[in-house]
């Protein structure tokens, strides 16, 4: 589905990613863990197309297409979704209206007709239930006045509505209480199929109790320094990140 080869990226001339290699296939869940400043959020930003970052080397192919050459909206249309670490409040823009135009723009690119009002409403009803998002929130301005937990649930709600092929969850667990975490994780699990995949970026192992990964990668200094199964996450939780630094010989 997606193949990242030797990806290097920098911001304002400072290198952050120093050669990432990662391949994700349909049906897989990959977790990317790592200490603060290791480049986790940069990776998700580069994949989603945030333009503050400059890709200095490497390539990313998404269903065989050059992802880095695409505009953010085209990446979304191709099936990429980023759940933001800090979802943006957009006063004056209705949550459902904006989703409707997003869905219709994507459908248009695929040569499909616009979604009918009835079908759309049915979908909103169904998908908001999935993350226990209050119907009133769905109709409010995007994230405006939402609590932290509501914002994260709104991200998963949008993901459910857009039905992406690849979802990147950027620290979706940060700041969530246990109930919200369970709701969010449950939503993600419900949406999992054989055709889609997710990359779960997190600092803590806690989320991985609920979203069980097939692979765990450790990112450090802009590189994936270790890859393992779900047990690697538990090991990190127990021992912290220091042993990785020593074992991999990358000096801090």
């Amino acid at each position, binding site marked *: 589905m997606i193949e990242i080869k030797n990806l290097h990226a920098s911001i304002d001339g400072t290198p952050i990613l120093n050669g990432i290699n990662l391949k994700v296939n349909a049906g897989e869940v990959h977790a990317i863990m790592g200490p603060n400043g290791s480049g986790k959020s940069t990776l998700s930003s580069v994949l*989603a*197309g*945030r*333009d503050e970052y400059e890709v200095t080397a490497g390539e990313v192919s998404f269903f065989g297409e050059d992802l880095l050459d695409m*505009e*953010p*909206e085209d*990446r*979304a*249309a191709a099936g990429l*979704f*980023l759940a*933001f670490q800090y*979802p*943006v*409040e*957009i*006063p*004056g*823009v209705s949550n459902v209206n*904006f*989703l409707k*135009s*997003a*869905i219709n*723009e*994507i459908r248009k690119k695929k040569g499909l007709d616009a979604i009918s009002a009835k079908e759309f409403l049915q979908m909103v009803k169904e998908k908001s239930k999935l993350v226990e998002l209050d119907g009133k929130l769905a109709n409010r*301005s*995007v994230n405006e006045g939402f609590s932290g937990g509501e914002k994260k649930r709104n991200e998963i709600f*949008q993901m459910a509505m*857009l039905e992406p092929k690849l979802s990147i969850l950027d620290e979706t667990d940060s700041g969530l209480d246990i109930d919200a975490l369970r709701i969010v994780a449950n939503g993600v699990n419900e949406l999992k199929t054989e055709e889609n995949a997710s990359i779960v970026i997190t600092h803590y192992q806690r989320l991985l109790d609920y979203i069980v990964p097939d692979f765990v990668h450790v990112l450090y200094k802009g590189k994936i320094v270790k890859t393992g199964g779900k047990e690697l996450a538990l090991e990190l939780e127990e021992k912290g990140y220091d042993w990785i630094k020593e074992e991999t010989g990358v000096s801090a």
Partner: protein
Amino acid sequence: MEQVIKPSIKEDFLRHFDFLDFSFDQEFYKNQRKEAKALIQNLDFPTSKTEYWKYTRLNKVLKGKYSFKELESTPYDLQGLAQNRLVFVNGYFSESLSKVNVGEGVYFAPLSQAKQENKELQNSFGKLYKQDEIFAVMNQAYHQDGAVLMVKKGKVVEEELLILNIIDGENIISQPRNLIHLSENAQAKVILKTIGYNSSASFTNMLTEVFVDTSANLEIAKIQEESKTAYQIATEQVKQEANSFFKINTFTFNGALVRNNLNIDLLGQHTESWLSGLYLLKEKQHVDNHTYVLHREPNCESNELYKGILDDQSTGVFNGKVFVHREAQKTNAYQSNANMLMTDDVTINSKPELEIYADDVKCSHGSTTGQLDEEALFYLRSRGIGYKTAMATLLKAFSADVIDQIGIESVQLEVEEFINKSFKGV
């Protein structure tokens, strides 16, 4: 030694009006013009030292050479416009483009006709203009045609009425003059629109006198869409009596230099006034909104909200003043101006002012300036919304509270459409 006296800018400018023939005017109006001409003698065009005009330099406007051009019609497409309309081309009434079908108790006719046939007009015409403002006085002395709307007591005009000024041609000067008078408990909605069609470097000096009598209810949507080289000064002089409601939304979409003077005088208790505006500026456009709300009596409320989106090297000026008289206890007056700056090269001068002499009032004012939220733009795009749509979405959201004020559906759609269109080219 012989001394050569160079004519002043004012003398030069006034020469534009030398050839105008007002012999058709009735004696009453001829005298009014005469009085105004006398007033001009003692007035001068504002300079950079004139506080009221501090941020708007008129040099290029005043040094222009203009001409009057009478056209009966213009190829401008009027399809879809209000069914009740008075259309003027270059300040002259166009009978063929106009369409009036109003019921009993509503008088809607060109000023030239009203002067002849409507005696009541003499009670209000020329009663409100400011005698110390040279452009108002110049309009009083040399105005051409315009619209007169008079609505009788208790009468409600259901459909909106359109007063449309079209400028067609180059270097056109025009001085339209309107009067709107709603009698007690009457109601109406008016679109006051100026457009440039095939025109450039024109100068329009429009004056509108507005009377909102006791318990009357008036909404004006003012839309300015002249050519991008046009100059316009537009003044509304409003008088509100007790329990009346008045709303005006000003939309400035084009023009090289546009100056709006909105003066509202609140003469009775329990009046309600809503003033809002939206300006979308590009290139080197300059738009200046000056408003003045005078609270003379207790228990009145005024709400003011102006917003601007400034692109390229444009300049915006906002000066809103609310004056609360000593007698005007329990006044509620709110004023706010917000600007979104799209580049680093734009200029905004924002000056909200409160002058309060009563001690039991609720008044606030504020001004904010910000940039487009890039993070929000990225958020929308990351969900699949294209750049242009995402831009338009954010700009509409910024303008939403002004757009929501519009009580005329066709105007609301027009404004939204303009925002969509104006950032398509980015």
